[in-house]
C-alpha cells in the first residue's frame, strides 16, 4: 500500500505531498503523522504542497485536521508552497483555511515554525500534552 513519506528534519517533520490523493491515502497520512509526532517528540510539522495543482475542500479539511491533531500533540504546523492558481481558486471556493499557518517554501516555513514554537512556549500553552 502506498504511503506518503514523512522525513525527520531536526526537530521538525516534513511531509511532501506529490500525488493526487484519494481518501485512503489521506487517512493513512494522518495516522502516520500523528504516530511520528509522538515517536520523535516533534514540535513542528511542515506540509509541502508545492506539487499540488488542486486543493479541494477534502484536501483542505485534511490539512486542517492535521493542524488540529498536531496542535493537540504540542506540535505546530505550517503549510508551504501553495501554487498561485490554487490560492486564487481556494479564495474563490470560499474555503476558510483559518488557523492554518502558511509559508512560501520549506526554508521560510521553518523560520515561521521556530517563531510559532517560541510564541507557544512563551504563551504557556495549556492545551499541550506537556
Amino acid at each position, binding site marked *: 500500500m502506498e504511503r506518503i513519506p514523512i522525513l525527520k528534519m531536526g526537530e521538525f517533520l516534513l511531509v511532501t505531498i506529490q500525488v493526487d490523493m484519494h481518501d485512503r491515502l489521506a487517512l493513512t497520512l494522518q495516522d502516520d503523522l500523528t504516530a511520528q509526532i509522538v515517536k520523535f517528540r516533534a514540535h513542528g510539522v511542515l506540509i509541502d504542497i508545492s506539487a499540488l495543482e488542486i486543493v479541494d475542500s477534502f484536501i483542505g479539511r485534511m490539512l486542517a485536521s492535521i493542524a488540529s491533531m498536531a496542535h493537540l500533540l504540542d506540535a505546530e504546523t505550517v503549510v508551504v508552497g501553495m501554487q*498561485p492558481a490554487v490560492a*486564487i481558486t481556494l479564495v474563490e471556493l470560499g474555503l476558510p483555511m483559518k488557523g492554518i499557518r*502558511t509559508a*512560501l517554501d520549506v526554508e521560510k516555513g521553518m523560520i515561521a515554525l521556530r517563531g510559532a514554537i517560541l510564541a507557544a512556549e512563551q504563551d504557556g500553552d495549556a492545551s499541550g500534552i506537556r
Partner: protein
Amino acid sequence: MPTANSKLLEVIEKREDQITGQWVEQQQTTGRKLTAAEREQANRQSREFVRALKSALQRNSGGDVSGPDWSGVREFLVDLSSRRAKDGYTPRETASFVFSLKLPLFSALKNEFGADPKAIADEVWLATLLIDELGLLTTEAFQKSREEVITRQQKELLELSTPVVRLWENILALPLIGTLDSARTQVVMQNLLEAIVQTRSDYAIIDITGVPVVDTLVAQHLLKTVAAARLMGADCLISGIRPQIAQTIIHLGVDLSDVTTKATLADAFELALRRSGHKVVGQEAASTNAAAR
C-alpha cells in the same frame, strides 16, 4: 426563378456603364462626404463589384449567394467591409455601398421592361432579394472585422500589464495605473502572485494611487489577491488610498478591516521593512557615530 435571373444579367450587361455610373453617384449621396482619393477608390470598387456580380450571374443565375459560384462576390464584399471597418467607416456607410445599387438596378430594369408590369414586378423582386442578401453579408463581415479589432486591442492592453517592482530583497510593489476592468485586474493579480513565488518575497504592496475609480468588482479583486497571497504565505499591503476611494470603499460595504492599508507607498514600504526586521538609519547619524569612536 432561373429564367427571370438571367434577365438581370442581360440588363446589367447591356447597361453596365449606366448602372455603375448611377450607382457611384447614389453612393455619394447616401454615404459620407468623400475625399477625391476616396471617390476614386469608390469608383474602382464599384466597377470591380459589378464585374464580379456579372461573372457570378453568368455562372449561376440561381441566386444562391452562399454557393461556390458566388465566392468571388463574397470575397470582394468581405474584403471591402473589413477595410472599411479598419478605416473607420460606419456600418451604414459600408452597407449602403451594396444597398444603393438598388436604385440604378431598378431604374435599368424599368427601362428594359417598361411595357410589362408583371415582368418589372418579378425582376425587381428578385433583384431586391439578391441585393438584400449581399447587403446582409456585407454587414456581417463588417461586424466581424470590428470585433476582431476590438479583441486585438483588448489583448494589447492586457499585455501592457503593470510590471511588478522589486523594492527590496523580499518586498514587491505593484503600482496600478489607470482604470481597472475585471479582466485586466485578474491578469495583473496573477502576475503579482507569480512574482511573489519567483522572488520569494514576504511582502507585496499594491499601490492604487494611480487608479481613479475603484468599484465593487475591483475592490473584490484586491481583497481576493490579498487573501490569496496570505494563503501562499506572503503579506499584502494596500497603499495609495485616496480620500474619495476610502469613501467609495466604505459605501460599497467592502470590508477591509483584515487588510493593512497605508496612505502612501512610502509608508507601506517602511512598514514592510520594519516587519521584516529592517530599520532605516540616517547616514549622518552613522558617520557621527563612526567619528565619535
